[in-house]
């Protein structure tokens, strides 16, 4: 086993000799789990307020707690084996998830005009959420053995693009633009990291410029087009499609420095804020806890991303590195798009905020992400 760590090899090899578990415990990377615990704590605390409103969301924080419990069990399961098992099972996970996505379209339950859920006993899960992480595992696996060094060209991109486009297509059929975009963005990030040839990048760029208007015209559903128009000028239709964006900005802004107080957020408690327990959860939090609260959440996410990146940076094999990087990128895009959206920086796209938005599948996916990162972090001296 080769390793070229920044830590001293003596210490690591010594620990191996003395007793793996003690040392492993000592070296156990708690930081991501601690950040996750704080975020989940804040999330539940905030959901108690957000789901105290008398509407369909009433009391939903309880099921969020249940999902968190299940997430903890899955975290433990994920931490036990060496992460290489995910490399070995990469394609199985991917195809399994694909099957689930297909099942959604056949057996799925509709809600708000979209078919996203599939029932498992008493639970409803959203396979598209899991696909975010399955995709990262699959891509890490795919590129692990790939030897391209000089940067990727079109030919080398065909297969991975296909791997990504199949689930994205299935997800778009639900339709769930937010999740599909998250997966695409994650893929894009990973590809950029792996380096794409300059010429290829240019061609892609030009194609994108040409394709965007066409996609806008033919690829998007009318309500999706409306969202983009609304984003460009929310005041064009303040009572209609611009309503959500404006109300969300008002919610955030009206929190001012210290917020209106717990459960005192008028925008959320009086239903001016739409989807206040899912996509717009950050608006609820920043309305009630102000800039100070928002800053804390932002700092926690920064901590999460930086810690995740450092795990990726310190990983010793390509799979671990790509896996960690992909997971961080998955978190990054969700955080950036969601917060950008509720603050009026980006158009309204249904992307949950990890650990804060209500939603079991999102919670499980995010927790699995942290668990995988922690697994990678813990195994870096085990080669």
């Amino acid at each position, binding site marked *: 086993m080769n390793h070229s760590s920044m830590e001293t090899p003596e210490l690591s090899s010594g620990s191996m000799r003395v007793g793996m578990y003690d040392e492993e415990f000592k070296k156990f990377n708690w930081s991501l789990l601690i950040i996750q615990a704080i975020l989940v704590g804040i999330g539940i605390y905030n959901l108690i307020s957000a789901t105290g409103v008398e509407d369909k969301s009433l009391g939903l924080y309880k099921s969020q707690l249940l999902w968190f419990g299940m997430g903890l069990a899955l975290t433990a399961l994920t931490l036990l084996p060496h992460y290489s098992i995910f490399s070995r099972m990469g394609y199985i996970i991917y195809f399994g998830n694909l099957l689930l996505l297909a099942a959604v379209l056949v057996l799925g339950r509709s809600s708000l005009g979209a078919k996203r859920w599939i029932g498992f006993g008493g639970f409803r899960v959203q396979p598209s959420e899991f696909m975010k992480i399955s995709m990262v595992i699959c891509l890490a696996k795919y590129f692990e*053995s790939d030897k391209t060094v000089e940067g990727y060209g079109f030919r080398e991109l065909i297969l991975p693009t296909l791997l990504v486009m199949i689930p994205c297509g299935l997800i778009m059929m639900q339709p769930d633009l937010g999740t599909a975009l998250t997966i695409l963005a994650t893929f894009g990030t990973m590809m950029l990291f792996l380096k794409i040839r300059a010429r290829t990048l240019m061609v892609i760029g030009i194609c994108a410029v040409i394709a965007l208007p066409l996609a806008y015209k033919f690829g998007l559903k009318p309500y999706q087009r409306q969202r983009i128009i609304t984003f460009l000028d929310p005041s064009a239709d303040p009572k209609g499609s611009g309503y959500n964006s404006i109300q969300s900005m008002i919610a955030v802004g*009206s929190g001012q420095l210290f917020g209106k107080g717990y459960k*005192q957020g008028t925008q959320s408690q009086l239903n*001016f804020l739409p989807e206040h327990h899912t996509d717009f959860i950050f608006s609820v939090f920043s309305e009630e806890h102000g*800039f100070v609260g928002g800053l804390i959440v*932002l700092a926690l996410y920064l901590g999460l991303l930086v810690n995740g990146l450092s795990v990726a940076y310190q990983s010793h094999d*390509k799979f671990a590195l790509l896996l960690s990087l992909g997971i961080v990128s998955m978190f990054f895009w969700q955080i950036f798009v969601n917060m950008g959206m509720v603050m009026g920086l980006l158009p309204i796209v249904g992307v949950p905020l990890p650990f804060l938005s209500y939603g079991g599948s999102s919670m499980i996916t995010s927790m699995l992400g942290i668990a995988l990162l922690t697994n990678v972090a813990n195994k870096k001296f085990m080669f």
Partner: protein
Amino acid sequence: MAFLGQEEQIREFQDRFKYVYAAVFIALGLLLSRLVFLQVLNGDKMRQYSEENRIKRVKVAAPRGMIFDRNRTLLTDNRPAFDLEVIPQYLRESKETDRVLTILSKLIKMPKPKLQEILDRAKGQPSFMPVKIKTDLSRDEVAAIESWRIDMPGVEVKEEIKRTNVHGDIAAHLLGYIGEVNHSELPILNKETQKYKLGDNIGKFGLEQRLEEVLRGIDGEEVKEVDALGRVKLDKRRGRVLDEDAGKPAKPGKNLILTIDQDLQLEATKAFGDKIGSLVAINPQTGEILAMISRPSFDPTEFSRGIPTAIWSKLLNNEFHPLRDKTLQDHYPPGSVFKTVTAVAGLEEGVIDEKTSFRCTGSMRVGNRVYHCHKKQGHGEVSVVQALTQSCDVFFYRVAQKLKSVDDIAKWAFHLGLGKRTGINLAREVPGLIPTEEWKRKRYNQPWNAGESLSVAIGQSFVLTTGLQLANLYAAIGNGGTLYRPYIVKSVETYDGRVLEEFNPEPVGKHELHAKTVELVTQGLWGVINSPHGTAYHQRLPGMDFAGKTGTVQLMRLSADKIYLKCQNFKFKERHNGVFVGFAPVKNPAIAVAVIAEHACSGSMGAAPIARAVIKAYLEKKFPDLYGQRVVAERLKSQGKSTFVPPTPPAALEDEDVVVNDDIEAVPGRDE
């Protein structure tokens, strides 16, 4: 697991991490700056937007001031009206709706399809907004609905304020009515300050209109917290946030205390029966209006919440114009009651005196024209007192001839308040008309015709007056010559009874009449009722002297052969108007009354009995020690007189007072 050669590649990868870190920091920095922008830089503005979202200001209608009579009898009140409303939100299932509508249709006796239709019409609006099903529920209906309340979710009885005229159609014209401000009125009303909104009520007639500023309260505002659907939240948790701005209470309008005596109003209305016309009673010592009615009338209460079209068109199409205030909005030729003015003019100008007498032969020739007296056979030799008592036309023709010109009559008519508005604080008063030579020159571009003076002397020709002017004229004669501006509002008070303003008698002109003039005229007017020759002798009140003058005014120009025909045989609208104006007691009068009874055929039979009833009621009430029924009876007994009131006189006397002139150029118009 690591492939061979990966170390190098990983090192290369690690090199790229700086870009990744940079991207993360830039992105989160962007989010942070947006947070600063929204919460720190624009926080105040956003907070205000969020307040505007949740805080709804609900108007609290201020009650209008109430109106009382001089004895604090309530005349105009704000009373609750009950409306039936259904909130569709509670009627989601069709079976439930059907059940509720079945019960409801029985309770308010409205067919079920109609109920369904009203609900269907409201389909477009949010389902939590109540739909008005029926207005003005009866008490029984309210009770029935309340008892079925539990079985009818979403059915509610809503209380609203209804401006109510407590005594129905009595004094309707005086009190007036209110109605909703309409589109065309708004810009004028809100010229200076934003005072009215669509849907607000405003006085549209009578005192309600004239004293809108006084009666109208200042609407308050209730601050309520609402959710995104506009529903009021009863959540107390955030209640304290609202305390800073708890709205403001409604300020009720000011109350009016009128000079009116409601007992007298009721008495006058009763005496009027179904006759058409008006009555005005004034206190001659002050100018206070004691009673003022115009018949036929209407019920202002029906206007207060939007008058139903059927009632409105019925009022409009009534040929006797119930919406007009006949006391001051309509001109009437005064007829013989004007002779008092001619007598005053003659006496004051010195062309006649106590001893002057003229011979009446039943007619008089001036030039080639014959001027008739109402008594065909003539009155014989008459003095001014007898002329007034018997209403001898010829005597007053002679007075007119003796006067320099018609302007001498006009001068005293003006002094006594005719020919111009009295200045009472009511809208749409007409000025009447007293012709002068100059007036005719201007109006017709013709010189005054000497014969016209004769017609003017007996209240015909161009002379036009209002009932109010006539009452005020006799009030001035009764008090010796002081003309007061008639007034209707005694005081203005706050809703809790604090006096804000009191109104006092306001003399508008004092033209002291010679005591002798007053004495002679009064004597003549006393005779009208109390002398066996008087035109209203049979209207006398034993033990209760009053003075007055009858007038019977022919409305159609009749050919000579019809002049003496019996009025009752004419078509109703062609019958003569009956006029009576008088005052009582004869000395220091406490009340002056003018009655105009349209198409009642005669002053003595049509108008005088109404005035008599009002005078009697007033004196009995006001001076029980002098005129109480028992006191009067005992006084008469001690004087050896019977309390028996003479029966209706023989028919021959009926048309005693008709002014029979064939020189009426035009039928007196009703134009203003």
